[in-house]
């Protein structure tokens, strides 16, 4: 197996008596989609925040692209190439769709410079090219001039992915990209992510089991802050602990 690009090593995080992350280790290797599943309150979002920055682990390390990023800020991690989409869409709501993606392209450029104070951003060909390319990939091109707050929930999810694309990240960190997409939307996104993994590997937190089982190369199951199993789709499907702890709940319904 190739060296992992993202390596979470024995990360623990407690809030009072609650162990949100209990000695978690997982990694992501180039070319794969690694899905992280688990019931609500299992600590998925807490783990994502520790990987993306913004929440500090009590112990353990996060390595990214051969570098220890445990003590780096969110911004520094983003600049190293960690592209993130949020569970609840986090966009500049007053901006047009195009402006949001240009913002991503601008962030990827890394510096504003003196020219950046006087040249109109929305006429900067290099930025627009990256932006439109990203919009075309997620199929939002025709909405480029729509105001973001007027987009449907599903379109906002697509825009989140488009902004992440403009950063040409080394790793995608996606927190429930399918949430609220509807059957057709999530099918299209599934097809898209399937291709995307060849650009950069994806750590995918997702509740949509159809998507997870059709996409994931590996699945990790998080229950009460602990990874109870990691394996291929078949291994996870047949794992007795997972069946009782997680999938069992579904069967019972």
């Amino acid at each position: 197996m190739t060296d992992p690009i993202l390596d979470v090593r024995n990360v623990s995080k407690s809030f009072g008596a609650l162990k949100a992350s209990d000695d978690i280790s997982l990694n992501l290797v180039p070319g794969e989609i690694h899905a992280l599943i688990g019931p609500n309150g299992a600590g998925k979002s807490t783990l994502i925040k520790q990987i993306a920055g913004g929440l500090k682990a009590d112990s353990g390390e996060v390595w990214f692209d051969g570098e220890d990023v445990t003590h780096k800020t969110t911004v520094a991690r983003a600049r190293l190439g960690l592209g993130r989409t949020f569970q609840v869409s986090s966009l500049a709501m007053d901006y047009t769709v195009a402006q949001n993606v240009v913002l991503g392209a601008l962030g990827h450029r890394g510096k504003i410079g003196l020219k950046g104070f006087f040249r109109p951003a929305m006429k900067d060909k290099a930025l627009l090219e990256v932006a439109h390319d990203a919009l075309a990939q997620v199929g939002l091109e025709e909405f480029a001039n729509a105001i973001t707050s007027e987009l449907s929930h599903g379109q906002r999810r697509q825009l989140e992915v488009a902004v992440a694309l403009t950063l040409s990240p080394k790793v995608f960190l996606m927190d429930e990209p399918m949430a609220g997409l509807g059957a057709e939307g999530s099918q299209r996104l599934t097809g898209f992510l399937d291709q995307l993994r060849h650009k950069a590997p994806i750590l995918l937190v997702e509740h949509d089991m159809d998507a997870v089982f059709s996409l994931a190369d590996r699945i990790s199951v998080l229950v009460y802050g602990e990874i109870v199993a990691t394996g291929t789709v078949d291994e996870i499907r047949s794992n007795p602990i997972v069946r009782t702890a997680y999938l069992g709940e579904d069967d019972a319904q």
Partner: protein
Amino acid sequence: MRKETILNACVLLGLLAVPLWALSVDEPFIITLATKAVIFAIAGVGLNFALGLGGLVSLGHAAFFGIGGYTMGILASHAQNYAPLMEWPLVIEGTKSMPVIWLFAVLFSSLFALVIGALSLRTSGVYFIMITLAFGQMLFFFMISWPAYGGEDGLVIYVRNGFPGLNTLDPIQFFGICFALLCIVLFLVSRMARSSFGLALSGARQNEERMQAVGMVPYRLYLIAFTISGAITGLSGALFADLNRFVSPTMFSWQTSGEIMIFIILGGTGRLFGPVVGAAVFILLEHMLGGLSEFWHVYLGAILLGVVLFARGGLIQLVAGREVAHD
């Protein structure tokens, strides 16, 4: 062309037409009023850069207005007394030249804005309002108790400073200088609002989390915006001092900060011409209502309340609609 762009052009033309009309009917006082409106407009445009674009509600912009004013006062008072500012290790003289004074006013106010901003921007929301207010008050009381430059009484400059090729004592010529500066400032600010920096700054106001995720540091964007904002307000302070030929600690008072903010709220937050409209209306009200009653602020308060309750985008939105133009 957008409605707002047409409105903006009308505002600018109106601001130019009033003093020209006053000149033709020989009413120099009205020219002075128009000059005051233009100078206040520059101060407002300065604050609006931080407040409208960056969402930084500063209640301490009087600090920069005052620093601009005292830069003029100190440089000119040394020049009129033929006393150098410093004799050792090198001799530094005062000056009566407007361009030089503007340069130093912008320099000092941006330095202060950089320092005050660096500390204040560690907080946000109500705390930011309070800490900027506190810095403003600190400078206010410092100026009151600093006897070297007049203390509470302020400084009187006997003759208005000079501008090469112009007679600045002629009201219409001084108005022309201020109006030209307003146009330059408006041009630069509109360029910056549409630039990459403006896009990022306004993006940070809307969503800091998003900016961090694309690898940009909101604090840095805010600090640059606050510094530019302070510099512009500082320039207007130097002009205001020249208009009155007098500086006093009142320029630093929190009421001054409040007035600058009122221009923005009246005209429209985040609108390029918001503070221009606001300042003009403010001066108009002060002149008309001030004649009626000493307590004209009561009426101003009522109008402000009306704008906040019924026209939150300010007077510009009332006339031109919601869509924002940046040109």
